[in-house]
């Protein structure tokens, strides 16, 4: 069983590296946004890394991922190339969506990453559909569907949970409850603020998880995915987490206090895991420095790749508006 995770040296460092990679990537995105290399809406994932990284540990290549507009972390942890992700934000044809989607709409057929969906709640019905197809075409495959707690206000959340439970579909619903739907605090929007209880109301086994702890998330995700693969139907994780940065790049954050942000930053999953690994002699300072410098080099290469990318010819603007064939 995977109830207990053996956090050895390699795996502990792997989790830290994955989270750090996202954190450093997002910092670079913010910088490039200021430099106007990245435009449009940009939603950064700082603070929530433990959720994406923890859940992805439980997934296989055959599994599918449906995500939201705050999906850089999911995309990186799923293994989409960091260069194509950055190039996408530069609007280049080398981007993972050919520059058509931008930050909010990362797609990757190879890793079954089905967006990058920027209609809150809109990804859940898709996940029900991929799970329905997978049960027939890829037995054992699971769809991991990420969404924020704001989605719980949408009808599509309820319609999807009901149908997934009714048809016992292989979906892992992952609610990243960061307490604010844009600027609306949970308690102002929901009569029931424990989102996992809503899932339980549909007969789905659901649990609340410390979303600031990648190990807790991984353990819960592995347990849930094992049950789903065993044919037990959907599972639901409510990961309690917090976004450290603003909702997007246009947010004065008047809806929350600096003190609250500080309280959550004290629970930052990255320094916590880093200290735990160092104190437990599972990572040396030299190893940490190597991880940091490898990530820095990787991000630098991604920026170079994006900068060197080309613009899709305007003549191709209408290409794929209707498809000539179903990609195989």
């Amino acid at each position: 069983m995977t109830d207990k995770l053996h956090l050895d040296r390699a795996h502990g460092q792997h989790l830290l590296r994955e989270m750090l990679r996202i954190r450093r990537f997002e910092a670079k995105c913010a910088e490039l946004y200021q430099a106007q290399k990245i435009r449009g809406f940009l939603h950064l994932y700082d603070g929530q890394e433990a959720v994406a990284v923890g859940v992805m540990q439980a997934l296989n290549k055959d599994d599918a991922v449906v995500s939201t507009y705050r999906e850089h972390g999911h995309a990186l942890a799923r293994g989409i190339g960091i260069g194509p992700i950055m190039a996408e934000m530069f609007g280049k044809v080398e981007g993972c969506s050919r520059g058509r989607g931008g930050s909010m709409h990362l797609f990757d057929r190879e890793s079954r990453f089905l967006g990058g969906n920027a209609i809150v709640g809109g990804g859940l019905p898709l996940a029900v559909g991929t799970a329905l197809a997978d049960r027939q075409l890829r037995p054992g495959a699971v769809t991991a569907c990420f969404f924020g707690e704001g989605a719980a206000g949408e009808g599509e959340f309820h319609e999807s949970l009901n149908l997934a439970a009714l048809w016992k579909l292989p979906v892992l619903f992952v609610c990243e409850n960061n307490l604010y739907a844009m600027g609306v605090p949970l308690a102002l929007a929901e009569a029931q603020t424990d989102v996992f209880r809503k899932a339980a109301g549909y007969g789905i086994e659901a649990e609340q998880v410390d979303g600031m702890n990648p190990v807790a998330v991984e353990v819960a995700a592995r347990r849930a995915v094992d049950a789903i693969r065993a044919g037990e139907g959907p599972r639901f994780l409510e990961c309690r987490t917090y976004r450290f940065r603003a909702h997007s790049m246009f947010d004065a954050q008047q809806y929350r206090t600096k003190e609250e942000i500080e309280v959550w930053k004290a629970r930052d999953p990255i320094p916590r895991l880093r200290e735990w690994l160092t104190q437990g002699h599972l990572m040396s300072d030299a190893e940490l420095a190597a991880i940091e410098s490898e990530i820095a080099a990787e991000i630098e290469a991604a920026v170079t790749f994006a900068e060197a990318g080309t613009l899709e010819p305007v003549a191709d603007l209408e290409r794929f508006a209707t498809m000539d064939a179903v990609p195989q």
Partner: protein
Amino acid sequence: MNEPPIRMTYREACRQAIRDALRRDPRCFIMGEDVGLYGGCYAVTKGLLEEFGADRVRDTPLAESVIAGAGVGAAMAGLRPIVELMTCNFSLLALDQIMNSAATIPHMSGGQFAVPLVIRMATGGGRQLAAQHSHSLEGWYAHIPGLKVLAPSTVEDARFMLASALDDPNPVLIFEHIVLYNAEGDLDPAVTAVDIHSAKVRRTGRDVTILTYGNSLPKALAAAGELADDGIEAEVVDLRVLRPLDKETIFASVARTRRCVIVDEGWKSGSLSAEIAARLAEDLFFELDAPIRRVCSREVPVPYAAHLEEAALPQIADIVAAARGLAKPQ
């Protein structure tokens, strides 16, 4: 050897089409409200649950958004779903998935994902179902890039459009008119497929072109009969495909007759008829000998009372009057 024509209703043709699709492709299934045990709100899917079982003919909860969205996801993951939305009025509850997912994802993903999904729905008025079951919203859907929009008005199209729609890599919406379900027609046994890109001339004539689709087609044909008694030869073009429009066939007919009446059961403001009129005005202006006329639904929610409903929808007399005004100007 010529086999005799096969007579069947539009409803039966729709059902045969679904039965065929389920037989020929194990990836194909149908889901929607009441498609199984009940046999379909308009009895189109009657008997299919017994024949194919509950995995292929899936009753769903009343949850249009997840029905449509699950169709999108299943199509992206390799199945060939047929989604039935009970009426196009209800499809508004699924509009997010139809527009923001189905129509958008292929382009937005840079062509990595296609959405080979078919959504069928009932449309139109004429059966006293009042304002929440009688509207014609296909014109709205025809506004959206990424979708194909079909309106079968003959038994042949009801029988064969579905297969072509399922073979298409794009999301295809099929609007079946509620008044047509009971209409009977002959199927030519030699015809085993129809295209989903062309308009068709259903009656030839030299004096005026009547462009129409859906349940307005039989009305336009009846109007053409009356006009012929007056010596006006009307050409009737069945649009069949509302997106993308078959400009070639439409323009060829109007260029020949130099006069055009567009009959559209949608409201006039911002309608498909407005789109066609604008294209004719843009590209065929100098071929026209008379203004373009439109016969559309009156700008009210379709009412229940029979006489009011009749007054609200395009009728034969309206089409005759419009054509007469063009072909024999005072």
